[in-house]
């Protein structure tokens, strides 16, 4: 009944889940959990501030992908950022454009924007056309975003989520148009492009901390602490296996862990 070849995936997932609930319990008991500063996420407020001062809009995109498949967690992380930006923008009466590449993301992104305007007490300022499905084709998607940024004179371009070859095109053209650029990707091939072209970059796991970071919600931060514990355990495991294998010449641990 149990697929034995997947036992280590189950152990890893179980360890992470246990760490998550342990930290959640700590947070509920009132323990203050520390969260380091992340410049890219701090800059989101700077973008809204500048946009409000200049009376110009902001563009945000969760990237190329849908709500299913491997890109889903990145897209959800991007939508968390959109949610935060939408709340801030609605409060300060800043127009926020959001572009999506998959039609199934469109109603979710529209709902986020609408809810933000209602929560800010300005339902009349919500414009359905500000959230757009552009194209599933990556370069058509990217060029359409650049078109919006140029036509609407956006002051900032936030690109946090799932990105592929269009990352450089998006980031560099946004920078050329004078935007504050904040990029975030987990795709190893696109991170260097974001680092090169963006003012601020979220690298790898930082993409997933956005929701917790911007809300400063202790229960959400508990999840990040669990992430750090899992990382520490992984590092410890790597060191132990490396030392054991090097010193004894026995590769049994490497085989067991399928390294």
């Amino acid at each position, binding site marked *: 009944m149990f697929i034995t070849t997947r036992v280590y995936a189950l152990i890893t997932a179980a360890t992470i889940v246990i760490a998550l609930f342990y930290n959640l319990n700590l947070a509920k008991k009132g323990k203050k959990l520390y969260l380091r500063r992340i410049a890219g996420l701090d800059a989101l407020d700077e973008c809204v501030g500048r946009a409000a001062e200049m009376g110009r809009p902001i563009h945000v995109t969760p990237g190329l992908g849908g709500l299913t498949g491997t890109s889903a967690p990145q897209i959800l992380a991007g939508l968390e950022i959109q949610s935060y930006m939408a709340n801030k923008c609605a409060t300060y009466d800043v127009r926020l454009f959001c572009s999506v590449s998959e039609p199934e993301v469109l109603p979710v992104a529209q709902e986020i924007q609408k809810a933000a305007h209602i929560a800010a007490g300005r339902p009349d300022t919500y414009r359905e056309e500000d959230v757009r499905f552009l194209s599933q084709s990556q370069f058509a998607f990217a060029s359409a975003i650049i078109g919006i940024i140029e036509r609407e004179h956006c002051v900032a371009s936030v690109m946090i989520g799932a990105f592929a070859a269009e990352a*450089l095109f998006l980031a560099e053209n946004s920078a050329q148009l004078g935007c504050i650029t904040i990029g975030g990707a987990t795709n190893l091939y696109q991170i260097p492009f974001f680092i090169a072209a963006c003012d601020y970059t979220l690298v790898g796991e930082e993409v997933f901390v956005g929701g917790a970071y911007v809300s400063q919600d202790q229960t959400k931060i508990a999840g990040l602490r669990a992430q750090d514990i899992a990382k520490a355990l992984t590092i410890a495991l790597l060191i132990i296996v490396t030392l054991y294998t090097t010193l004894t010449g026995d590769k049994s641990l490497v085989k067991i862990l399928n390294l």
Partner: protein
Amino acid sequence: MRKALPTAILSFVATIVLIDYWFKIPVVNNMAKDFTTWVSVIANVALGLGAVNLVLVHSRHIRLKRMEWGNSLVLIVLMLYVMVIGIAQSSNSPTYRWIYDNINVPLGSTLFATAAFQIASASYRTFRARNVESGLLLITGIFVMLGKVPLGEMMASWMPTFAQWIMDVWNTAAQRGIMICTAIGLVIISVRVITGMERGHFGSGE
């Protein structure tokens, strides 16, 4: 309720799919297979939503004669034309293929080709030695670039080996570090979404 119901559905479906990954239970395996089929159905229905959104946004541009409204007109006309061809003759018909191969593919390739210029301008900004980090990046970048071209080998015979060492050791180590942390982050955000702890994507308020 606005958040509770979607979260409950999400948690239920995700639990079934997770059980399907680790266990061979016919009832659960069949349910997971059905859910996967539903994903395709929902995605196809959503495609219609996307098309409606496109038409609404661009028809408004045309009606209000907004900046570059001509582009919106071209988009709507071409979209409807391709849609009609696809429905009438199927997406494998020669006309449909011609449009795809001679319009869509070259446009995508042209934009991809501009990447070389984007890299040059982005690198120029990044490789300016403004602080210690960008200075190190500049020096490393110079060694790697020289190691990858014949000029580097002409200057010093060890250059290609050194460049490869930077790529194999330093670069790979950093990439694997990012990869492992990203994988752990993926698991954590998935658990947070499945358990309803992360609900920002449902929007603010109840």
